[in-house]
């Protein structure tokens, strides 16, 4: 918050645009205000067109802020004939400079200036992404959800929204977004990793198996997916399958001490202690600092020596 111009947080002139019971109408952050405008325009586009004009008077003096310095060409464009497209372009420029705070404000301004603009959904998306890149997941979520409701089609919307929802511990909603992302790209590792982790938290083991035990995904299985799938099989009593999945995962990710440890646990459960010892010896050789692997190895060796 402190990175942004205080001007951007002044209360917008909302008194003129009351929308009935909308609680955000009287104040809140700039983004909340922008979101209200989006929602308002979605339902009452003609009125919102008028609103956009009214809002021009309340535009913040973004360009005056030290952190938001656009190139001269853009500055001239904004100062000469400001319009929503110019602010959107400015937001894109700031975003490409990784200045997401200024990008956020530019996109919000664009939305305020023209809540009926053709690219409303896209600008809302960009607003949400800019917020997300500032680690402001809480405010990114409504912007991204609004973009989704406005019909914005891009798989990155689902991915970023899901990530933001994860950040806010809205696991169920995040799961839905991960699934939406996977509908578009069934091989998306980010989504499969996160979804399977969420399902593991939910103890939805069959859901994990259904999500990950798909032939198409076999070549792409990440270490996390192997562990989550292994855990799902183990939790449903399918220890042989768990061992096979974890073994395969370890062969793909030989450096993963976590997989080796999990595999060893399953192998011990299966009374294949000798195999567990081999797996743990490799893990300890690669990760001498791994206390868990060392302890397990010692225990497994002891069990092996005692014939258990």
């Amino acid at each position, binding site marked *: 918050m402190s990175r942004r111009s205080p001007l951007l947080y002044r209360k917008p002139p909302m008194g003129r645009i009351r929308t009935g019971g909308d609680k955000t109408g009287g104040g809140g952050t700039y983004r909340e205000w922008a979101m209200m405008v989006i929602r308002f325009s979605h339902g009452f586009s003609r009125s919102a067109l008028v609103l956009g004009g009214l809002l021009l008077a309340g535009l913040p003096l973004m360009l005056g802020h030290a952190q938001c310095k656009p190139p001269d060409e853009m500055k001239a464009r904004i100062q000469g004939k400001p319009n929503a497209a110019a602010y*959107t372009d400015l937001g894109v420029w700031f*975003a490409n400079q990784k200045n997401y705070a200024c990008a956020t404000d530019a996109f919000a301004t664009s939305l305020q200036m023209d809540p009926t603009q053709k690219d409303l959904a896209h600008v809302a998306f960009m607003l949400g992404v800019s917020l997300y890149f500032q680690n402001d997941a809480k405010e990114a979520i409504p912007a991204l959800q609004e973009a989704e409701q406005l019909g914005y089609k891009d798989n990155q919307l689902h991915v970023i929204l899901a990530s933001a929802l994860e950040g806010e511990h809205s696991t169920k909603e995040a799961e839905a977004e991960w699934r939406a992302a996977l509908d*578009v790209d069934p091989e998306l590792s980010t989504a499969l990793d996160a979804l399977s982790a969420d399902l593991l938290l939910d103890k939805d083991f069959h859901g994990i198996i259904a999500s990950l035990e798909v*032939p198409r995904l076999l070549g792409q299985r990440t270490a996390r997916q192997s562990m989550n799938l292994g855990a799902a099989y183990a939790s449903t009593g399918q220890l042989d399958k768990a061992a096979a999945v974890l*073994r395969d995962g370890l062969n793909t990710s*030989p450096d993963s001490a976590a997989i080796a440890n999990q595999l060893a646990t399953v192998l011990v459960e299966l009374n294949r202690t000798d195999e567990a010892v081999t797996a743990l010896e490799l893990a300890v050789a690669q990760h001498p600092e791994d206390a868990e692997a060392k302890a397990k190895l010692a225990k497994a060796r002891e069990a092996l020596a005692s014939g258990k």
Partner: protein
Amino acid sequence: MFPDFRALPWLKIKPLALFTLCAAAVLSAGLMATQTGAPGLHRLLAPVYAAQDAPRTLSPISFDYPEDGSIFPPGITPPMFIWRDAAGTSWSIDITFADKGAPIHAVAKGERMHIGAIDPDTVADSNSPPKLTLQQAASWTWTPDARTWAAIQADSVDQPATVVITGYRDGGVAFSRSQIRMTTSRDPVSAPIFYRDVPLMPSAGVNGVVSPLAPTAIHLIHWRLRDITKPESHTVLKDMPTCANCHSFSADGKTFGMDIDGPANDKGLYALVPVQKHMTIQGKDMVHWNPAGDIGKTRVGFMSQVSPDGRYVLSTFAGPSLKLLESYYVTNFMDYRFLQVFFPTRGVLAWYDRSTGVRTPLPGADDPKYVQTDGVWSPDGKYIVFARAEARDPRPPGQGKATHALDANETQIQYDLYRVPFNEGKGGVAEPIAGASHNGMSNNFPKISPDGRWLVFVQCKNGQLMRPDSQLYIVPAEGGTPRRMRANTRLMNSWHSWSPNGRWLVFSSKARSPYTQMYLTHIDADGNDSPAILIDNATAANRAVNIPEFVNIPADGIDDIQVHVADEPAVAAALPKAANGTN
């Protein structure tokens, strides 16, 4: 605008990680080669396993290719053995044979998988360079030299060879091991494969309409011939100014047919020429499915098939009053991996008689209540197998736009396979084929074995052919219990074709890469098939191969095909156009 967040750091994490992994792979491969020197390959009379084997329990290696039970055609070029191993840092390969063959021992250099040569002409913003999957990036490989492979093949005919890979570390202590069994078939492939070699470069026009390939890139499509005993394919046709699609050879290998696009989206031209060493397609060789010239309307020839004796051509045609977009569901995507969905929703089968020049609907497959497509001839030419579904509007009012392959917004269609007598063109009653119909799935692209006993077809949830979930099934030609083929890979299995001797099937798949590759499977007398065998080096790593078809000619039976149809004014006027079936 700002939509491409791939340019931003947050979304660069994955590619960066992959790049790092690939770089590490390359480096480690180089180091490994340095450490092991040039181990070569030796036949040894010594015991198969290394003497320093400790009595420890060996960690299982993931043996990825060839799969256990693989059957190789005789004479095929040496395959790359591929495995993953968390334990080993060096490997030995020991091959033993069931009969008298002396065991073979080799030391693997420990080479990583790598991406093959890239065609710079087909690099585009709309595609990505081929990347190794996580599994591939973690894989180790060994390719026998030609002499060793010949020895393996010679001693594994009928009786399987056992291939054992053992991983060593810590100065030669065995830590890991796995094995597979593989056989060399007595059945030769005995015919070359004709296929299309295409770029995957979807293109958005100025109006936002996506084409599978920009008109300016159509010349990048090549047609090639592959003798599987040779290390690379031979290009027989390229730089064609218009787009050609499905091709078909008569069973006797004497006649070649190919759909060629004509003026103003008229897909009503068909080339029919005799197969020769040096072939030329000229205007006089063109059949006009659209002689009335009602451009954009009509009688689109689709999946045309030359009869076994080359006399007839069977094809799918829309009714005369239907426009192209009223008969086909066509959606193209910018995702190069699966960039097109294409299937007919209306149409009848008709047969064309080359001797009379007359095209006639085939009774039993000409009912406008249905879409009837994918017609193929039985080897004796006596009956036709085709795919059928209730006819429908390809784009029902209110239907959303599909944004990716298998999107729920795709028009839904599930075909059933039917069989109808040809009966000298008089047709008959179409009967559903048990095991390939009314099963809730889409059954399509039937191909009958040369002995007439088997039918291999594609099954998927929706549409036909090159779908991500396409799987190959085999069923007795007269119907019966279908069997999912062992050769199916993890992603897209379609465009199959029988070898003339009926013992091999070639098909396309995206198992290893979004850039489609060709595979072989052996099929025995009982219809049992074997794990997929990759046909290596069929094209550049960033090009796709599809529509493979065995041609009943000698391996060098076609040297080149010249296309001079552009000399014909009607065709020349149409150039260039977009391609179909480029997945």
